[in-house]
């Protein structure tokens, strides 16, 4: 059979019929429900002209071959900025990429958004920890288009983000994180069985069949997702803010409370409050300093990060801070090895701590036990 004939036959596949049916449904529902409004048409015209200008270039460049480069505006630093979807390729994307978060538009450096991803060979046991930290998320600075005026942060990962795929055994899975750092994996086995696994920050794991999952059972029958896809989307898009999500805020493990309590006592306030998380060490760079990140292995190692707030005036003033600042803003940090739990770095500061950089758990009141 000729290639053209084979191609024509694609229109007779079941897929083609089903997709056609879906589009027909769209068309008929729109025809019934919508009368175009003048204002909509004006907006569509303006947007259409803008798109046509861009795509006109594509057509002029040879029909199907898109242009290789986009002409981006440039700021005073010489950095290009704009919206990534307008780029013709990954390489073509501007230095500062437009983002919107907290209802405010801004720009993030491409280098902050995309990497650098670690290139070293990670021990197999650390890979899932690394991916879990990515799902729990961390913030990158968000700027005006000048690339220097910071106007907030943009979250990478965090609740609502997901990763997944298909395993060699035919099962499909998707991972997402909730606001408390718990990784939720929805999995559909080859035989159709759906399970939901939760891995808490301390590594404890629970697995339930979808029919027995406590979060889903709390939903009314009408709103309860049924298929794997529906369940996956629910955990990703609805779950993080839904009161039925039972993943409660984790309690700091005893060993961590002990370490944090000891540090608080030494710094002068045994009743300090503590917040904590498990993240890449590079996330601590804003207060630990870039110099601590001697290698990629160190940069991407997982560490427990604890931030303690309290009256650390004595320690901070002895380190040179003014008594007023030390009393108002005193905080200390601890970085602890993920497995050995040994303190690998600690420090103190009398300047306010930007808590927006992390999704910290707690607040754990020390000295109450």
């Amino acid at each position, binding site marked *: 059979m000729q290639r053209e004939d084979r191609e024509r036959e694609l229109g007779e596949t079941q897929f083609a019929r089903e997709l056609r049916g879906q589009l027909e449904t769209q068309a008929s529902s729109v025809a019934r429900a919508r009368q175009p409004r003048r204002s909509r048409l004006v907006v569509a015209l303006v947007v259409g002209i803008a798109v046509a200008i861009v*795509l006109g270039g594509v057509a002029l460049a040879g029909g199907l071959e898109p242009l290789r480069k986009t002409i981006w505006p440039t700021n005073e630093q010489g950095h290009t900025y704009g919206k990534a979807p307008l780029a013709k390729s990954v390489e073509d994307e501007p230095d500062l990429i437009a983002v919107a978060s907290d209802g405010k538009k801004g720009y993030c450096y491409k280098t902050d958004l995309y990497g650098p991803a670690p290139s070293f060979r990670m021990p197999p046991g650390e890979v899932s920890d690394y991916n879990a930290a990515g799902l729990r998320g961390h913030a990158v600075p968000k700027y005006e288009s000048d690339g220097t005026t910071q106007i907030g942060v943009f979250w990478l990962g965090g609740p609502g983000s997901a990763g997944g795929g298909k395993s060699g055994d035919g099962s499909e899975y998707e991972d997402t994180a909730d606001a408390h750092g718990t990784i939720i994996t929805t999995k559909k086995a080859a035989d159709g069985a759906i399970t939901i696994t939760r891995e808490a920050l301390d590594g404890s794991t629970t697995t339930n069949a979808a029919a027995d999952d406590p979060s889903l059972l709390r939903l009314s029958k009408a709103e309860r997702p049924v298929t794997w896809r529906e369940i996956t989307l629910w955990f990703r898009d609805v779950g993080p803010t839904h009161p039925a999500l039972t993943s409660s805020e984790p309690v700091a493990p005893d060993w961590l409370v002990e370490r944090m309590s000891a540090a608080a006592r030494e710094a002068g306030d045994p009743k300090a409050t503590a917040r904590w998380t498990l993240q890449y060490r590079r996330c601590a760079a804003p207060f630990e300093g870039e110099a601590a990140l001697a290698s990629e292995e160190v940069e991407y190692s997982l560490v427990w990060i604890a931030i303690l707030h309290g009256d650390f005036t004595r320690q901070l003033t002895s380190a040179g801070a003014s008594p007023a600042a030390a009393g108002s803003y005193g905080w200390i940090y601890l970085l602890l090895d993920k497995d050995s739990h040994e303190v690998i770095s600690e420090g103190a500061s009398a300047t306010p701590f930007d808590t927006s950089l992390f999704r910290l758990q707690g607040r754990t009141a020390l000295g109450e036990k």
Partner: protein
Amino acid sequence: MGEQGGRRDEELLVASGRRPDRFVALYDRMLPGLLAYFVRRTLDAQVAADLTAETLAEAYASRRRFRDRGEGSASAWLYAIAAHKLARYLRRLRVEDAARSRLGMERIELGVDDVERIEALIDFEHVGREVRDAFDALRQDQREALRLRVIEGRSYREMAKELGCSEETARARVSRGLRRLAAQLDG
């Protein structure tokens, strides 16, 4: 071509702004070529079907933005969307479903017959020779990543464990390897 037979693609696409049923007529004309475009670039029937559906959903949702710039402009417009979807797929190795989700369109799983019909478009012998040459020219880490992902069908989670890297890095190696392969095969 039915009752729309005498109309140009561009006329159908413009008319579909007010009469969405015209888009269905355009769909009949465009589907085979679009599906073939994707299957020859991804060599995966299900991925090609997903990309086709997502492209058409995006085109349907954006149809009022199209402006008739003459013969061939409807096709260029549609394939620009297709090329963008393909680029994003090659970068992330995941077909997005944003346009279909917005329209409430469900993913269509291919049956065995459809897979065979679609894969019949691929001249595997010819592709095989070219792929082998292009594959040999790849970097070692990309070759390894493609072997695990494409030949052995491993998940990114499994690949990351085997290669001792993150899932992101495994994805990036496969993506770069596929892009390089695609560039060599296109060239």
